[in-house]
């Protein structure tokens, strides 16, 4: 059966089996991947996968089953099982599936990988790095092309299909000089084509340039409250952590959100504007429909410091009585600021240029702490030296409230676009 036929068949079979509402999603994925490890391209992978997801609501009870065998016998057994586990669930009137929307077919990217071009780009990248950054050792690189197709249907009339083809590259590296070694660093990005050399995408060139400068780091002594400049690679993690404890389902349903009752109020510095743009042409990856069955739309999450939307699913919205988000978040784009990165660095009296943060999971009140990796000490407007054994601690909400500058420069990772941001009030401690 074709994908749409399979989801239609499953939908009808679930309704016939007694489901009051049903949702069926079928994904097919094929990935071609080149692996480089410790000095050589050592592996080519071709992986094929299927995922069929069947969800049922009956008498306000929810059941879900996921399988990757889609023979008629496997589907029949899965339908029987999902109906049984649904019977045993506890009722919750907030369970629901998306309302009817116009049927849509979404497409993006190539249909097949160009393996010769992938090999050529990877080979050129490793040779260029060896020539231009001789102290940098490429630990591993993964270059893949993922072709994915999906069909999403539900019993309310939702009928979406998608075809996507995306290249993704990621690299882990460190610098070495005799017995001295820098901390490893990593980055990656997504792209719709391989028209440009790998080194020119995302922040690869920038981080590789910095890598050899991270050799021979020096620990700080003592403890002080200082300023911090977050790089684009680092900023993404801080944004995801902040949103995860403040505007998603779980913290809002349980009432533990630090942004509870703060819709349309100032929650960060007015210098900070954050979008989620899963269907923007500037985002190579992204997604076309939400996990609960709505066609995804771009949104403004924080506008000049004012919280414009929560990231609630349909369930979260029904549970809290607050509006449902128009997307699932992710694909974050931070608006550029007015200062150059150089000017921002010149403005720092004492602090850190934080390139990578290796930290514990932040608490629900936003407190975080961790180690500043691949980072540099800033004093009197200058980059002084690379750091080792230096810890930082602060609070996520305070960090975003205390933003003092956002850079004009940004990095497009294909899955998000981020500038450098400067903030204050972080505890920095060394030996």
């Amino acid at each position, binding site marked *: 059966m074709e994908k749409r036929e399979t989801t239609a068949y499953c939908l009808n079979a679930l309704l016939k089996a007694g489901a009051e509402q049903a949702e069926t999603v079928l994904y097919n994925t094929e990935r071609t991947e080149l*692996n480089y490890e*410790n000095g050589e*391209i*050592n*592996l*080519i*992978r*071709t*992986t*094929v*996968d299927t995922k069929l997801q069947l969800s049922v609501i009956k008498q306000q*009870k*929810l*059941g879900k*089953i*996921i399988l*990757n*065998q889609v023979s008629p016998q496997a589907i029949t057994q899965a339908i029987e099982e999902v109906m*049984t*586990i*649904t*019977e*045993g669930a*506890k*009722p*919750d009137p907030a369970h629901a599936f998306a309302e009817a929307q116009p049927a849509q077919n979404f497409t993006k990217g190539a249909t097949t990988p160009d393996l010769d071009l992938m*090999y050529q780009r990877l080979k050129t990248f490793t040779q260029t790095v060896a020539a231009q950054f001789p102290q940098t*050792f490429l*630990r*591993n690189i*993964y270059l893949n092309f993922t072709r994915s197709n999906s069909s999403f249907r539900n019993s309310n009339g939702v009928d979406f299909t998608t075809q996507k083809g995306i290249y993704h590259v990621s690299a882990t590296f*460190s610098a*070495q000089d005799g*017995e001295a070694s*820098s*901390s*490893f660093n990593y980055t990656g990005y997504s792209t719709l084509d391989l028209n440009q050399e790998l080194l020119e995408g995302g922040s690869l060139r920038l981080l590789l340039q910095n890598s050899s400068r991270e050799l021979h780091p020096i620990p700080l002594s003592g*403890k002080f409250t200082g300023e911090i400049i977050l790089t684009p690679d680092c900023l993404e993690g801080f944004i995801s952590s902040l949103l995860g404890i403040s505007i998603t389902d*779980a913290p809002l349903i*349980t009432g*533990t959100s630090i942004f509870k009752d703060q819709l349309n109020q100032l929650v960060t510095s007015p210098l900070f504007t954050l979008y989620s743009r899963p269907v923007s042409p500037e985002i190579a990856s992204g997604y076309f429909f939400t996990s609960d069955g709505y066609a995804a739309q771009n949104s403004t999450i924080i506008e000049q410091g004012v919280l414009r939307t929560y990231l609630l699913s349909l369930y979260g919205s029904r*549970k809290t009585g607050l509006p449902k988000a128009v997307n699932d978040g992710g694909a974050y784009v931070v608006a550029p600021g007015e200062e150059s990165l150089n000017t921002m660095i010149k403005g720092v009296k004492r602090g850190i240029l934080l390139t990578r943060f*290796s*930290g*514990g*999971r932040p*608490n*629900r*009140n936003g407190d975080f*702490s*961790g*180690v500043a990796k691949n980072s540099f000490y800033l004093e009197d407007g200058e980059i002084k030296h690379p750091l*080792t*054994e230096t*810890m*930082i*601690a602060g609070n996520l909400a305070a960090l975003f409230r205390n933003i003092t500058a956002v850079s004009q420069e940004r990095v497009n990772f294909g899955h998000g676009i981020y500038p450098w941001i400067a903030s204050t009030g972080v*505890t920095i*401690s060394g*030996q």
Partner: protein
Amino acid sequence: MLTDLSQYTDLFSGYTELRYQENSGLSIGFLQGDNTTNAKGSSGGVCARVYQNGSWGFASSPDLTAEGIRFVITTATKNAAFLDQKEHKAGAPLPSSVYNAKQDYSTTKPRLTQNQLVEFMKELDQYIAARYPQVTSRWVSLNCSEQKKSLITSDGSSAYSLLPQSFIMVNLTVEKDGEPISLSEIYGGRGHFEDLFSHPEDLSPEIDQLVEHLMQKRDGIHAAAGLKTCILAPEMAGILAHEAIGHTTEADLVIGGSIAGSYLNKEVASPLVTMVDFAHTAFGETCPVPVQVDDEGTKAEDCVLIEGGILKGFMHNKESADRFGVSPTGNARANSYVDEPLIRMRNTAILPGNDDLAEMIASVDDGYYLIRTNNGQADATSEFMFGVTLGYEIKKGKLGRAIKDTTVSGVAFAMLKTVSMISKEFKWLSGGMCGKKQSISVGLGGPALKCELKIGGR
């Protein structure tokens, strides 16, 4: 399930591994008393990996028919040939290693239905709701998984394994001055649900203790930042063993520049410290993640990493073992059928010592007792960090106030030299996962350690 792969060996044209794997499981969750999650799933398929003159090819498919199996073998062979033709490495043949084994950790008890498990979890949730009204938020969940594998290699190895794991996670939050403070705990480990849990009320003492810690943490203080004398509880020592030392001694990381590469047969720790990556059995008992045969068909052997403070060895797959001129240790593991085997830890632990935990705490004048962690990361330089979600200050040999969430860090091979006491008590951490390219289950364990650590705080 597909257990007999021997009929497909005629399709092998060189060094080839053919593996069938199915990962299945269920999850049930209650958020604030509502049954938000009630799901089950499975993902299975077949994969092949082929080695040709130093180049590897891999392919996988969920198609379990003869056609699907032929596809993965021929595609993996084609991929290896493509790379060989481009790279011309002229690599030597891999060392041969033949072993045949079967391991099945299934329960012999009658299995509960998912609906019965929903009732169990509901009862557990209701116990917390009724007994602890001061808990403002609760998330109670159950995750049961089963990993089935069949492997055959062109060397002649064959293996079958079935590894079930079951974990109950409880995450609780209280408030103080409008601020949420949370604490979570994972119960369970290797085995089907029926072998690990009988009645919801059996967990009451653990839940009571969790809430007691949470109430202490609610009134807790920020740790004072800086280098401190710490007692790491056994769970923390386990993550130290894995993150800070274990990763640096994986042979692929050693080749990639890990600092451990230059420390072989040198003193890297206090003479009190011995650390082993156990294959399947430790202290006469089965480990949390037992591996008899790895996914290259090599017999899994214990790997002594540190003995009496001296770095003794690294963890290997066939290729790295050949490069280092040693025998493979059976550390090549893959998490699912779409994954190729990588050098991974199995059950990494610091061995227990002769000290008593209470005496260790009593020996600290000003420091911290660190009990629970929620994540960790390490570097090839052996600099590590891990999050601390539960700990207490130690003042003049006595436990004091609880501390808020923090992070500890250090340089492992320097910090291990500060270890001055090791407890007799030993514990495996529940639910250990490692995220090196593929997320995979690992066992991590240890005794309590007295050491010097940098703590992040205010």
